[in-house]
C-alpha cells in the first residue's frame, strides 16, 4: 500500500486545477513511475495526489496546419515512439523516448512527468531543448507559456505553480523544419539505467555554413542545459572539420558537470567532449554533410 494521505481523481484539466487548488499540498500524478516510488518510500511531499492518469486531452499528439507540433504532457514514451507525427518530423524526440527505462516504464511514464519532476537526467529534456520546446501550463490564472530552458530552475525545481498542470510541449515549425538533429544517451547499461551524460545536437545548415546550431546536455549541470556560448560561436562557421574542433573545445565552458556515485566529474568531462563531436556528426550525416 502506498503512503497516500489524500487522493482525488480528475477527469479534465480544469477539474485537476480546481482539485489542486482545494488541496494545497497535492501534486499531480500521471504515469506514476516517479510519484509512486516516492509515495512508497513514505516521502511526505507525495502523500497528497490529484490523479490525471486518465485525462484524455493531455495524451494527444497533434500537428497543426501551420506546422506547430503539440505534444500532450500525458503522452507516454511509447506514444511518442509510435507516433508518426514524432518519427516523421522530430525523430530526435523519439530517440530520447526509446532510451527511457524499459518497455513497461515507457508504456506508463509520461513526457510531462519526465520534465515536471525536474530531474537533471531526464531523457526527453535534451531533445526538447534543442527543439526549442515551449512549455504550456494551465492554472487558476489561465495559460502560461515559456521556453523549456526557462522552465528549469534547479535540481528537481521547475517553474510550475502548485495548482498548474503542464498541458503540452509546443514545437514551432521554424525549430524543426529543415533542421537535422540527433540524441545519444551514454549510460553504463543499454536499458533500465539513468544517463551518465545525455547529449542532443540540432543544426540548421545554410549552404556550406552553420545557419544555427543547438546543443543540450543532461547530467552536465544542476538542470538539463543548453550550450549558449558554443552555439553563438558556431553561428556562420564553415561546415568542415574545424567545426568539430570548435564545438569540442568550447562545450565544457557551457556546462557544470559534477562528481556523483555514478561517475566522477573528470569522466563526465571526457564523455561530454566526445559526445558533442559524435552527436554533431550523427546529426550532420542526416543532411548528407560529412566532415571527415
Amino acid at each position, binding site marked *: 500500500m502506498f503512503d497516500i494521505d489524500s487522493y482525488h481523481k480528475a477527469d479534465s484539466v480544469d477539474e485537476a486545477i480546481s482539485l489542486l487548488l482545494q488541496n494545497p499540498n497535492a501534486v499531480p500524478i500521471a504515469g506514476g513511475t516517479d510519484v*509512486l*516510488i516516492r509515495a512508497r518510500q513514505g516521502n511526505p511531499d507525495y502523500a497528497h495526489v490529484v490523479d490525471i492518469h486518465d485525462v484524455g486531452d493531455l495524451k494527444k499528439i497533434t500537428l497543426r496546419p501551420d506546422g506547430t507540433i503539440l505534444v500532450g504532457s500525458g503522452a507516454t514514451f511509447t506514444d511518442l515512439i509510435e507516433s508518426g507525427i514524432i518519427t516523421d518530423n522530430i525523430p530526435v524526440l523519439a530517440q530520447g523516448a526509446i532510451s527511457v527505462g524499459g518497455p513497461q516504464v515507457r508504456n506508463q511514464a509520461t513526457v510531462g512527468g519526465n520534465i515536471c519532476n525536474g530531474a537533471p537526467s531526464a531523457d526527453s529534456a535534451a531533445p526538447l531543448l534543442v527543439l526549442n520546446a515551449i512549455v504550456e501550463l494551465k492554472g487558476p490564472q489561465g495559460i502560461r507559456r515559456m521556453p523549456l530552458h526557462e522552465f528549469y530552475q534547479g535540481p528537481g525545481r521547475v517553474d510550475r505553480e502548485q495548482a498548474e498542470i503542464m498541458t503540452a510541449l509546443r514545437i514551432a515549425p521554424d525549430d524543426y523544419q529543415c533542421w537535422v538533429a540527433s540524441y545519444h544517451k551514454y549510460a553504463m547499461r543499454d536499458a533500465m539505467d539513468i544517463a551518465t551524460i545525455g547529449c542532443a545536437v540540432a543544426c540548421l545548415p545554410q549552404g556550406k555554413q552553420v545557419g544555427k546550431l543547438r546543443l543540450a546536455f543532461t547530467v552536465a549541470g544542476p538542470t538539463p542545459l543548453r550550450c549558449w556560448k558554443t552555439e553563438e560561436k558556431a553561428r556562420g562557421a564553415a561546415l568542415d572539420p574545424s567545426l568539430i574542433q570548435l564545438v569540442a573545445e568550447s562545450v565544457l565552458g557551457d556546462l557544470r558537470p559534477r562528481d556523483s556515485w555514478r561517475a566522477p566529474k573528470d569522466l563526465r568531462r571526457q564523455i561530454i567532449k566526445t559526445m558533442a563531436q559524435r552527436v554533431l556528426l550523427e546529426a550532420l550525416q542526416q543532411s548528407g554533410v560529412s566532415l571527415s
Partner: protein
Amino acid sequence: MNRKISCSINGKSFSTTIDVRKSLLEILRENGYIGVKEGCGAGECGACTVLMDEVPVNSCLYLAIWADGRSIRTVEGESRDGSLSAVQQAYLDTGAVQCGFCTPGLIMTSTAFVEKHKGETVTREQIRLQHAGNLCRCTGYEGIIRAVEKCLSDKDEEAKPVISKACDMET
C-alpha cells in the same frame, strides 16, 4: 478511501471495492492471482508484469483504480484447458526457466511481443530491447530469446539451431 472498480481479468469480468492506495499487484495477489510476483516493487525488475489492454505494465507501479474499465491478462489466463500457451511451451522447450520467479512476468512480456510481431521478421536486438524491463538472474536470457524466436518462426518447421551471442564471443 475506497472505490469500486470493474475490469476484466483473463477474460472474466471482475468487480471489487479497492483501497485507492493499493497497487494493482496487491489487488491481484489478494484475489488469488499469485502468479503475479513482487520483486523490486519499484518498476525495475518486471516480475509483476501484466498486460493492461494488451500492453505490458509493471503492476507494482500501477494504481489498482487505473484498471477500472480496462482488461488485464496475467499468467494464470495463458494456459487453456490444461494446455500451455505457445509462449509457455517455448519457454519449456528452450530451457528458459530456472528458478522461475521472473517467469510469469517474462511470459507476459514475451506474449505481448509475439502477438504484436506475429508474421514479422524481428532481430535479436529488438527482442532484447523489448524484454529489457524484465530481469532474470538465472538463465542469462539466451533461452528466453530463443523461446521468443521459436514462437515467431514457422511452427511446422524444425527449429533451426541458433548461434548464440555467447558462442560468437567464444570463437
